[in-house]
């Protein structure tokens, strides 16, 4: 079991890595993100390269956001570092089943790994050092008319095709939108799959989830969910609220490097240059 202290170390390392990605995206820091982060951890007296590589896995495809969003190529060493991070503890194959059948956290990590691995191979197909991560199961679908806190609930035996169900579990918009927020690193241009399809069919749930998180002043969660709204806007979906104003709001009221990165990515998705 991971200790509280180790958890804090990973979280702090992920924050620092997010800051590097943000700086690279905004052109205010070096172009290297993951490589510079791991290098810094290896050379510092209190750094731990294993923790730094773990942070890469926490951020997932977000470490590649500066290159995906600007079209610049990752500098030499960047893809090797990502290969190292993915190779240190290869993604489980086959991935765990989706909730409620499988373990929530491991399934979420499997998707974040898929995002990193897929973004890496799309960005630099010739030099991708890691094998493609296996595609995990689709998330439960958001049921707008279900009780809002309904946990993932298996569909009736054989599915309920008469009501548009394809047999996947359904879930209330509160836990569903929070989980989509945890998968926000997938909300990048060029990534598309079952999670993105779930976002497309859960527009209202995402808008409600972002609204709820904002009103609860949980700005990290609000920014993550709002990023999906920005992705959907870029995807051409009609939204029940203005994602630009909400992005500005969570960016101005929220704090922390990961929230700042989510905000910057959302602004790019919405076609607004970073501040």
């Amino acid at each position, binding site marked *: 079991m991971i200790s509280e202290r180790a958890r804090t170390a990973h979280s702090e390392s992920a924050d620092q890595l997010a800051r590097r990605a943000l700086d690279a995206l905004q052109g205010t820091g070096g172009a290297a993100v993951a490589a510079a982060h791991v290098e810094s951890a290896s050379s510092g007296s209190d750094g731990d390269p294993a923790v730094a590589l773990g942070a890469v896995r926490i951020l997932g495809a977000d470490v590649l956001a500066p290159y995906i969003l600007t079209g610049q190529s990752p500098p030499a060493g960047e893809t090797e570092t990502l290969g190292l991070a993915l190779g240190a503890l290869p993604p489980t194959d086959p991935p765990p089943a989706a909730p409620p059948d499988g373990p929530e956290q491991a399934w979420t990590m499997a998707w974040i790994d898929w995002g990193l691995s897929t973004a890496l191979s799309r960005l630099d197909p010739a030099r991708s050092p890691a094998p493609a991560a296996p595609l995990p199961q689709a998330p439960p679908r958001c049921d707008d008319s279900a*009780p*809002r*806190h309904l946990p993932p609930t298996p569909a009736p035996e054989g599915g309920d095709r008469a009501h548009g169900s394809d047999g996947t579990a359904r879930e209330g*918009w*509160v836990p569903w939108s929070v989980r989509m927020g945890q998968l926000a690193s997938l909300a990048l241009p060029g990534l598309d799959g079952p999670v993105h399809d779930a976002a497309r069919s859960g527009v*209202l749930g995402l*808008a*409600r989830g*972002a*609204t*709820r998180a*904002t*009103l*609860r002043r949980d700005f990290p969660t*609000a920014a993550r969910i709002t990023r999906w709204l920005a992705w959907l806007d870029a995807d051409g979906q009609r939204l*029940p*609220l*203005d994602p630009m*104003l*909400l992005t500005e*709001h969570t960016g101005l009221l929220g704090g922390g490097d990961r929230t700042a990165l989510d905000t910057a990515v959302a602004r790019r998705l919405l076609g607004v240059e970073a501040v």
Partner: protein
Amino acid sequence: MSPAPARTAHDIGSRALTWLHANREHGALSDVPRADLADEAEAYKAVGETALAASLVLRSGVAGTAELGLARELLEFCWGQLDDGSLLYERMLRHPLATDPMETYAHFFRGGYRHPKVERLIAHTVALRSTHVVEHIPNRRLAVANAARVVGLDHGPGASDWAGLTRATWLGATPEPWHIDWLTGYSVTHTAFHLTDWGRLPDGLPTDLAHYLTRWLPVWTDIWAEAGQWDLMAELMIVGTCLPEPWTEDDDWQRLAAVQHADGMVPRDDQPVDGDAAQRFDAHQHPTIVALIAGTLALVRALDTPKQPGS
């Protein structure tokens, strides 16, 4: 609404009514000098709110014999506190621009009471442009408009511009749902209450406002339930019963039932309830009225809404 929460809603309302009836003397105005009553709207506000809830029970058509008896006695008690309406009349004479006597009178009118001199004065007041531009907050102007409608005076030159009044409210602008606060939450609920005359006219909500509320009520109800703001949570549950397609969640009714005390009192929030009976009445009479209205209107809508096939 499925049968289980309909029963819960009924039980909540019934217990709240019992408590309001049993504790009604704590709301008596006998200790307040009559001059103060004529001068201060706050002094008799609670009597008006009790009268509103009682009038809605009588209007509902779903109350049992015992509940109808309690509601009738409660309304009679409130009418007596206002000296059979004379106090409203005196206040109108003394403060011609005050609209609260007319708003309060509407509750009694709904319950079958009449005071001809008050009504003549209201008819005169409603015809004045001045009444329609009193500098109330926007949702309060809808309260005045609805009072005139209930009393049957919302026509002719004095008729309210409902569309204009609606658009002047926060809700009427369908703003960013993530930028609401506690006090504005109450503005939203009251805009919906007055537009629909407390659920009697669900189509009184313009279609876009009904859609907007359907989208965001679940969020607002959730966050104020989490914050333990039972009074606002229950008001939002009333709004759900006022929609053309009523919105309700079983969990909300279970939560409201769980916070209600055994004697029927509903605390306004999650803070400890203390004080003697009079202090408790003073502090928690409002949320208990809200719970009575919520339970009553939910039951009305549960019974008048056609069942979905298979539900």
